[in-house]
């Protein structure tokens, strides 16, 4: 089914890419680009400028495992997730679902893909229709995508509500009658309705109260084990990612800067940007003394980024403007097994430079 031509071939026709080593991926994303044209004048003349929200991103989400995307706002993590959900059309690149290129899928295949990829959103106050009863919200995917009878749907909704820790009788209530944590549970039940293979989680706990976050995270982990679900998690909180994710990627300005097994990244964060994120993450205890450093400035605009390394303008180290990677995009390099980093003279944190944060 796949139509990849010159690209290096590997398993099932999915081209291999640096850092992508899943043996059984549910979803593989290859060379994904999402550019928005922001600078065209009325007649389409003049220089075109692009906002490069996602620029050449590749990763795998392994079956039954969680893959996390972290970074600051504007780094492209949510755009990546939206492309996978079909809410944005990629400018370039391929999404493989179960080894099949989504863009060239048949109508039937596409429907199956849409059924198997579901989402839970950040804000449980705006992601549930206030005029629908909970039973209809959770049952809606079943009404649309299956031929189940009303009674079957009702049964399934009851099971789903129980599964996420709610009471079946609550299906007659409206969303405003629930607290934030309960609403997020409703969102999870809706995502589970069609027995998906992968759920996209967009900051699923950041809008919730501290004492509720742990409940929802535990619920998600339990459901993953029970159903063999894969998750694509987008978050800015590193501790959340560490708890939930098996693999992760750190993004900056639309580009993956560091990727690999979660524990490896936390044991030995190599990229200065990853270290900066870890350093900025607040300690859980006043006794924890961490070497601190702050990156100068703020995230720069993703509109017309320079052709070289995107981190160039943010690094605290000296940048050699004549270096190859000041003018062309550096690739990910495998600096230790299953741990990939963008390696340039100004991107790697070392003990001497003082930008290495020790977490172990």
């Amino acid at each position, binding site marked *: 089914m796949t139509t990849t031509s010159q690209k290096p071939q590997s398993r099932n026709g999915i081209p291999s890419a640096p850092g992508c080593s899943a043996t059984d991926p549910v979803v593989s994303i290859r060379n994904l680009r999402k550019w928005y044209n922001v600078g065209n004048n009325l007649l389409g003349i003049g220089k075109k400028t692009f906002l490069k929200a996602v620029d050449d991103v590749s990763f795998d989400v392994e079956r039954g495992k969680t893959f996390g995307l972290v970074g600051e706002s504007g780094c492209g993590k949510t755009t990546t997730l939206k492309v996978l959900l079909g809410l944005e059309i990629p400018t370039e690149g391929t999404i493989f679902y179960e080894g099949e290129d989504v863009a060239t899928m048949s109508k039937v295949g596409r429907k199956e893909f849409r059924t198997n990829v579901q989402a839970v959103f950040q804000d449980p106050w705006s992601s549930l229709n206030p005029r629908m009863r909970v039973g209809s919200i959770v049952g809606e995917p079943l009404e649309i995508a299956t031929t189940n009878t009303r009674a079957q749907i009702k049964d399934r909704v009851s099971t789903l509500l129980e599964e996420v820790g709610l009471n079946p009788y609550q299906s007659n209530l409206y969303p405003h009658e629930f607290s934030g*944590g309960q609403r997020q549970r409703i969102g999870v039940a809706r995502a589970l309705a069609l027995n998906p293979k992968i759920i996209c989680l967009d900051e699923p706990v950041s809008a919730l109260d501290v*004492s509720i976050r*742990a*409940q929802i995270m*535990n619920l998600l982990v339990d459901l993953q084990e029970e159903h063999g679900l894969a998750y694509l998690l987008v978050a800015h909180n590193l501790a959340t990612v560490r*708890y939930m994710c098996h693999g992760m990627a750190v993004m900056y300005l639309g580009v993956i800067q560091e990727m690999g097994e979660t524990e490896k990244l936390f044991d030995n964060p190599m990229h200065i940007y990853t270290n900066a994120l870890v350093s900025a993450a607040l*300690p859980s205890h006043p*006794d924890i003394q961490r070497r601190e450093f702050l990156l100068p400035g703020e995230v720069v605009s993703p509109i017309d980024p320079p052709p070289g390394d995107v981190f160039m303008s943010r690094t605290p180290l000296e940048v050699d403007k004549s270096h190859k990677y000041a003018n062309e995009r550096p690739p990910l390099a495998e600096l230790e097994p299953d741990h990939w980093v963008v390696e340039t003279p100004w991107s790697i944190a070392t003990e001497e430079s003082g930008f290495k944060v020790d977490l172990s």
Partner: protein
Amino acid sequence: MLEITLNRKKMSLLNVRNLSTVFETSGGRTIHAVDNVTFSMAKGEIMGLVGESGCGKSVTALSILKLIPNPPGEIISGEIIFNGVDLLQLSESQMQDIRGRQIGMVFQEPMSSLNPVLKIGTQISEPLTRHLKMNKNLSLSRSLELLEMVGIPDGKQRINDYPHQFSGGQKQRIMIAIALACEPALLIADEATTALDVTVQAQILELLKDLSDNLGISLLIITHNLGIVARYAQRIAVMYAGKIREIGLATDVYRAPKHPYTAGLLDSVPKLKGKKLTRLNSIAGEVPDPTDLPLGCAYNIRCTKVVKKCNTEPGLSVHTTNQSYACWNPL
């Protein structure tokens, strides 16, 4: 009342005693948003007021500034002694001389706190002309100083820009510049960094800490983020359902929390360090409806250490001079 040792009484800048603020709902019910809250802050001290949404931490801040909308809200009892004066006895015009002059405030949303149609220079110099009666030239040069202090480069050009021309972090820096314009003795930061990215959040918090260290400003940090308090505050007060449940030195409270709620909160946060947990310890249940609180300790429906006596409200009792808690069956 109990946690204040004699020593701190002498140097304290702010003494909040038995403060209670209520709101009337449209259904005719009363919400005790702040219920008999007592705490004090010393000069130059950084204190963290922590709790979940609806626990009354923001209402406490608004009560200190007397910004509670009335109706539906009302401060029904208590004293707020600031620099020896009870703010609750002051008239509205006297309060206006204190807000922005002696007590500065920074709110969560920098986007909605700045006036979008005024140049930021105008907004920074407003407290200077209003409180310090500075003329145009003086206030301009002071505004430039302030912009530099909060780390906004090219002040001379940027002072004529409008809020939308700044990033979120920069807007929050401008809010801090406005709040600090008259060098207040107390700065209240209500979820001031919640809407910002982590690296920017760290920059802003470092800035606030430096300003507190250098200018001797007391800082009341209101947040739900226990990490901010762990990193920056000397003292912590934990609120739940309108009451302070535990208060004390941050190091003591984090090392050995006495109230089960404090312990539960600290436990439920995933860690960056140490062994990776397979399960987080979560607090069961949800925050109770403020119009329908359980009898006695409001935490008793979620508490794992509940005893019979929890049907009555515990007062704040002293554990050490540096730590007090309100619990019948502490850890």
